[in-house]
Structures are given as C-alpha cells and as structure tokens.
C-alpha cells in the first residue's frame, strides 16, 4: 500500500516488493520463455515489460475493463490482476499469437469486415475473449457471445458490430472445420 493519498489507505499501486526474484517459465504463443521476476509482478506487466509483447493493453489495472485479456490454458483471463507466477508452466496466448500460419485468422478477418473496432484499444482483449469462447463453444448463440465479452469494455463501437463479427467468425470456422 502506498501513502499517495496522505495515508487514507485507498491505494494499492504496484511497488516493488523487495522480495527475491523468482524464475518463471511458461509458454507464450507457442514459445518457451524463462525470466527472473519480482514475485509480485502481474502477468500483464510480464508480457509487456519483460517480453515486450505490447498487444495486450492496460485500460484500468484493476480487472474491470478487459483490455488486458489473454488466454491462459484455454480460459480468458484479465492479465492485469493475475500474478505472472500463476502462469508457471502454463500456456499463454495473446493477440500476437492468434494468427494462423502467418495469415490472420478468420476471427481477426471478421473483426475487420464487420468494422468491429474503431480506436482499437479494446480489440486485443476483445479478440481473446472471443477466441476463448469459440474454442470452447464453436456454435454460440447471441446471448452466449454477449456473456463472453461482457467483461470487455468498448467505448467506440456500441458492441453490435463485435457481436456480429464473432457470430460470423463462428459460422465460417465451423464451415472450415467441415471442409478440412
């Protein structure tokens, strides 16, 4: 806790713990990574500051807005309120890792086609929530899509194009599965 608010005790900003650094190893977008980190470091700070993966964004730093959403072991999580150490030996996917064989994925293409983004700041997190949904439920209905992205704020689009893009991507992905 810092004394920023004149000892009102309302602030919990990250300050170096002074604890001994710990070795973290995990898999990020298919690549093994290892680093010695402060054990109080968040997963988002690990991705951005240590790995220089700047795709994941910080919108609030307190798990409310979803801009930092990544996939950890198949589940969409807010990386700003998860300790990096919780990712020990886990598999992480970020927006930089959802392309397929050097091409953008169907989901990404549908975000473009449906204009499911304006400023683009929520887009990486939104894509990861959508990806996690489609991975566990290839045929979601509208309310399931809404539920999946309800933790991702978007101030620009009004969400409608995003919901349409995810529904369209689900359909196209199912068709692709059939063809394969």
């Amino acid at each position, binding site marked *: 806790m*810092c*004394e*920023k*608010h*004149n000892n*009102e005790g309302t602030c919990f*900003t*990250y*300050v*170096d713990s002074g604890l001994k650094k710990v070795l973290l190893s995990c898999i990020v977008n298919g690549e093994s990574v290892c680093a010695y980190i402060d054990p109080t470091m968040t997963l988002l700070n690990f991705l*951005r500051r240590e790995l220089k*993966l*700047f*795709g*994941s*964004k*910080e*919108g*609030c*730093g*307190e798990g*409310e*807005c979803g*801009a930092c959403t990544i996939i950890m072991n198949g589940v969409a999580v807010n990386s700003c309120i998860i300790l990096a150490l919780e990712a020990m030996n886990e598999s992480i996917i*970020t*927006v*930089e890792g959802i*392309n397929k064989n050097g091409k*953008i994925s169907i989901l*990404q293409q549908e*975000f*473009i086609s449906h*204009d499911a*983004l*304006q*400023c*683009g*700041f*929520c*887009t*990486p997190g939104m*894509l990861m929530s959508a990806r996690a949904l489609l991975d566990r439920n290839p045929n979601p209905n509208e309310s399931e*899509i*809404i*539920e999946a*992205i*309800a*933790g*991702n*704020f*978007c*101030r*620009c*689009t*009004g*969400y*409608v*194009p*995003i*919901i349409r893009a995810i529904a369209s991507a689900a359909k196209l992905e199912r068709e692709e599965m059939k063809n394969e």
Partner: protein
Amino acid sequence: MSDKEYRHIGKPSDRVEALEKVTGQATYTADLEFPGMLHAKCLYSPYARAEIVSIDVSQAKALLGVKAILVGDDIPYLVGLYMVDKRILARGTVRYQGEPVVAVAAVDEKTAELAVSKIKIEYKVLPSIQTIDEALEGKILVHEDINDLEYIKNVFFPQPDSNIASWNKTIKGDIKKGFEEADLIVENELTLPAVAHAPMETHVAIAQADIYTNKVKIWSSTQSPFAVRKLLAKALHISTGDIQVIVPYVGGGFGGKAGIHLEPLVTVLSRACKGRPVKLIATREEEFNQLPTRAGMRGRVKTGVKKDGKITAFEIFYDWDSGAYADYGVNVGKSATYSGAGPYEVPNIELHSRTLYTNKVFSTAYRGFGHLETHWVIERQMDMVAQKLGMDPYEFRMKNILRPGCLTISGEEISENSGAPDQCLAAVAKEIGWTGYRSEAERRSNINTGKLRGKGLACLQKAPAMPPHTSTSAIMQMDDDGNVRIMIGVVDIGQGANTIMAQIAAEVLDMPIEKVKVIWDTDTSRHPYDWSTVASKYTFMGGNAVKKCAQNMLLQMKEMAAQALRSSIEDLAHKDEYIYLIHHKNKKIKYKDLALGYAYENGNGIGGPLIAKGTYMADGLTFLDPVTGQGFPALDWTFGAHGVEIEVDIETGDIQIIKIASAFDIGQAINKKLVEGQIMGGVLQGIGSAIIEGYKFSPEGKLMNPSFTDNKIPTAKDIPMEIIPIIIENPQPDGPFGARGVGEHPMISVPSVIGNALYDALGINFYNLPFSPENVALAIGNGLKK
C-alpha cells in the same frame, strides 16, 4: 440519395488501419519505449480547496533512481485554451481534489511511485464551491485573480470578482412581446451530472526536451497535436516550430484528449532531467479525477406557445458546473448560444449560458460538446410543453422544426441545402410506430405485468463548434509505381478519418483504394496543418482539402500529359490510372509514368515529381456578436432524430431498450459502414449518459466513484435489443460529394429520448439524469403514491 455512380464514395471500405489493430501491431503512446526513458508519477490534492502550507520532498529526493521532483513554484508557466488560468502543478492553492501538486520522474514507475509516497504536504483546508448556486453567489472565488486572467476577448466574457468564467448570451427578437403573445407558458428546471469520457486508453504523454536548445519532442495520445504545439509554445515562450508533436495510435478521445493536458508537465520534467525522455501514463483513477470531464449542468427553461403549438418565446439559463479551470468549458458554454434551443424556429429568445468555476475536477469538450446537455433540457421541455398543450409531441415538434427560410437562434437562414430535421423525425417516428402518447388507462391496464412500455421521440442538431476561420490542409505525392501517399493533419482516433480520406482521394483520381496510402502517425513537423481533430468537422473540411489536393494532382498530370501527347489539357480525360485523349482513347499515359516526371524514349524529361496540395478554409462564417450572440457560426448543420421504445421494470427501475432508431441527414455517406459504426457507438455512449454514468461527489468535494468499479460504462449486456441507423442524404453543395459530419451527433438527445419514453411508459416526467434503477424506482414509488 445521389443517383451518381461512384467508384468509392458510399462504399463500405474496410478501415485502412484495421489489420494493425487486430494483430496487436498498432502502437499506442503507452507502448513506446526510448533509450534513457524515465517515468513520471504525480501526487495530487486530497482536498477540493486548500492552501498548500508546506511541501517536504527530502525523503523522496534521497531515493536512488529519483531524477527530478517538481512543485508548482518550480514552474512559472500558465496554460489555457481560451482562459489562461491553469498552472502545470498547483501553486499556493489547490482547486480540486485530484489536482496534481508534485511530480516525480524516476528510472521506473515503481521508484516514482515509491518517491510519491514519501512526499509530505501540509494543507490548510478551505471551504469550497460545490454547487452552481454557491458558484453564482460568489462568496468564495475559485480564482481570486479572475480579473487579471488572460482570455480571448469578445468571444468569452469572464465577469469581474465572480466565479463566472464566461457569460455568453443570445438575444433575438423581443421575449417580453413573445411571452405576451403566448397562450401558455411552461417553465422547467432540469439537471445532469458530470460524466467521464472514459476512453479505453487513458491519457499518455512522453516528452524529450533538448536542454541545449528550445527543441521539444512529444509523443502524445492527443486529438489535437497542432493545438498542443501552439499552446505549449505560448506557455514556454518558445517558437511553434521548436516543438514536434507525434501522435501514435490513440485509444479513443471523445473530446477528452483535445486541447493540452499532460504534455507541459512531461516537458518540464524532461528539462529537469537533462533532456531524458519522460513518460507519464494516467492511471484510470487519474483519468477520472485529475483529467477533465464533461461538465454537469442546470438548465432553467421558460417557453411561450400559442394554442396551435407555435413557439413564441424562449428564455433559457444554462449554468455549467465546469470545475476548477476553464479549458474547453467556456467554449462548451458558448455553443449553447447558437444551438441551445434545438432545431426549432424561435422568433424571440433570450439565452444565457454561464460557465462557472467550481472546486471540482475541471471540464472539457465531450463528443458533441454542450449539445447532449442543452438537448437534454430542450427536448424534454418540448415534450413537457406538448403535454401541457394536450398536443402530440411529434406534431408539436413538426410545427416548429427548422425548415428552409427559417432563422436559427443566431439569425442564420436555413436553406434547402442545410439538411432536413423534419425528414429525420418522420423517419424515426415511422420506424418505431409512433402513434402518440399512451393514455393513463392504457398504462394502468398493463401495470400487473410489472413491466411498462413507452415510446419517445427527440430531435437534435449540431454544427462544428470552431473558430470561423478554421483551416486544414493536405499534401499528396505519387511514387514511381503509381501509388499515392497522402499527408494530412488529422488524428484518426477511431472515427475512420484515414479511411474516408483514402476513399475521397481514390474517387477523384479514379484508382484502386489499395494504391492510396494515408500516412500516419500524425507528426506536426512533417504533416501539414489541421486545427484539431474535434467538432465532427474533418469529413467536411479535410474531405474538401483532400478532394482539392487530388484535383490538383490530376491537373499536374494533365499538364505534363498534354505536353507529352502534344495536346491541350481540355482535350484530356482520366480513368483507371490513365490520362488519355478524349477523342483518341488509345493515346494515353499511365499515371505512374508521370509520377517522377515524364521521360521520352530518347531520354529527355519534362515536369518533375508529382506533389500536390489542397487547402480548405471555412468560408462565410463570422464571430458571434458579443452582445446579441447573432452571427454565422455553422459550417454545416447536421440534423438528426431518435425514436425509442423502452420497457421499464416497475419493481427494480431497470430500463430495457427494445428498439432505438436514429436518423441523421449527413448529405452523403462516404462510407456507410463507418457511418453506421458512429451511430451505433454514439447511441450506446448516449445510453451510458442516460442510464448509468455520472460523477458522485462527497459534500466536501471528493470524487466518490473514480473507478470502473463504481463508475461503469455500458457493456455488451446493456445494448438495445434493436438499433436501427437511418442515413438521410440531402447533399450539401459545398461538402465533399455533398457530405456533412456525423461523428458526435449520435450521442446527442439519447438521454432526452429515453426520458420522453419514460413519461410515455410511466406518466412521470424526469428532470434529472441519470435514470439509474434507483432513481427510476424511487420516482415510480413516489409517482404511484401521488
């Protein structure tokens, strides 16, 4: 709808920068790192008004890794857009809770944070101004030096020895006569609270100030790099050209990133750190309580009408709870003087708009500034007057709506080219199946279901709020392979300006849009001038500049081709990247063969590299008369209307929007997909202002909800069940291809239309925003008791 066949105009082109945004490659200011970069943190005031007795930074300074600590006394500069009233760090007195008092630059964020925690400030807490009435009373002055502040004369009118930062007026006709002629006079008072812009990206700025010269390089999440450059140069007493402002991707602005914010602070910190780059990222809490907001407002409105529904007079007082510094707030107040009575003909009006200093976080522009607020008052008032008249509010609006030949409240004549608010209103009324208010009996008959439905209508208007002589420019170059690069000064904050400009250029040049590259990041040292990315003015102004620029490039190509083809310009035409002879179509030259100058087979060359320019300056606009507010402020009016059907849960007060239809007369959609995106996004942002959002202050002036936990914005669960964007196209001859702006408009009048539907559903008039479940449930409880 224009019957002209266009190749690109009106087509749903994909956003030109979309690929970078879906792949995580798009770089925002917070993503930038530079060699030697330091990180800044601020300590801010816990009190709304207090005297700074002492500041002790000794412990903080002693920390390893702290490179500079600045307090207000270290920085003698004042900044301000219209009123030069703000210090970079508070000096002597703090004027709002959240005002930065001390700034630290250190090797990393955690060291800066630790240093901030070790700073000791002793305050003497003073009584503060928390309400509009206290501000008007003026027993305490937020700015004791108000009489000495520098400001733009004859545009803003600060009142001596008061808290009135500007008192702007509209006086047209004779309201005394107007009210005498009236058969009915209706008076109401409505309010709305301050609301946060809440862009997903908080404000971020990095500065690198060369200590040997005056040069300053800034990277910022700003909407107005050229304004930052100008205002910073003025504050630091250096030349405009010494400052370079670069704008990477911006994660939403909505007006909150217009003007100048964190840039001066990081600049002085960088100077104090021997020129090392200094980065400051506002936390979400700081975004709420340190950086500016939309002002709260109280509107007192008095309307005179004839029995037949014709308005005879309006008297309006708009009082803006505008916070501790004027920033854009005075201009927000000023916008009411030419647009504050809605899209109606009002023969007699007296309108007073007072922007007030209070001890709260200061206010600035917010999407359609002043208009959501004034239209909240006016469009509710239109319904309440109709109720008193016993008239259908649709008919009442249609009776008074602006039509060709009518005068606006600032005395500007509306023509058939100005757009048609009546068509917008008719379209939304039809879309929601408007048939007039429900009767009390109809309401009662459904009460057992626990859910009551209601419909509502509201109109809106807005013209860009900008200086009458606002200008913009474009530069275009052609590469050897025939690709065209466009340099413009706009910032694409998500509104899609880069895409729209590519479409316009590709249309004029008749070439594939893929070969037209708009160049960002906007950089004031490389890109040509644009005033600011605000006011829904860029499609119109930038579109005209880019159109003229592309025409200029065509002319240059034709001049060269005329020589090469031994012809004259008049005999040449262009198509599909060729300049050709009209009568001998096979005699032609490909654009790319002219790109660097034309070369004959024997090696002779003519012409030179193609570089075109296009500028646009608003024409025919005037300053408003300082006494009467009369004049010509409107480059283009965009009119619109919303129609809504809602369902209210009478137990919980929860409002579900069944359907909302929103129509705008935008002249010509350049890109329908992007226009619909603006409409859907703006409508939901308006729903946020209507139902969810709003600042809550303690009696002492502490912001109680500076987080997304307590100050939510709409989520995917809050969207209307159905949202219908309607595009109406009555072209404006001086707009590019007939187009008008629409970026801000969809948000305006959304609270009013829901308020009107609440009356239809419940028979209860609401006067205060937001329609939070508790406010609605309480009103229902009180209403049913009556």
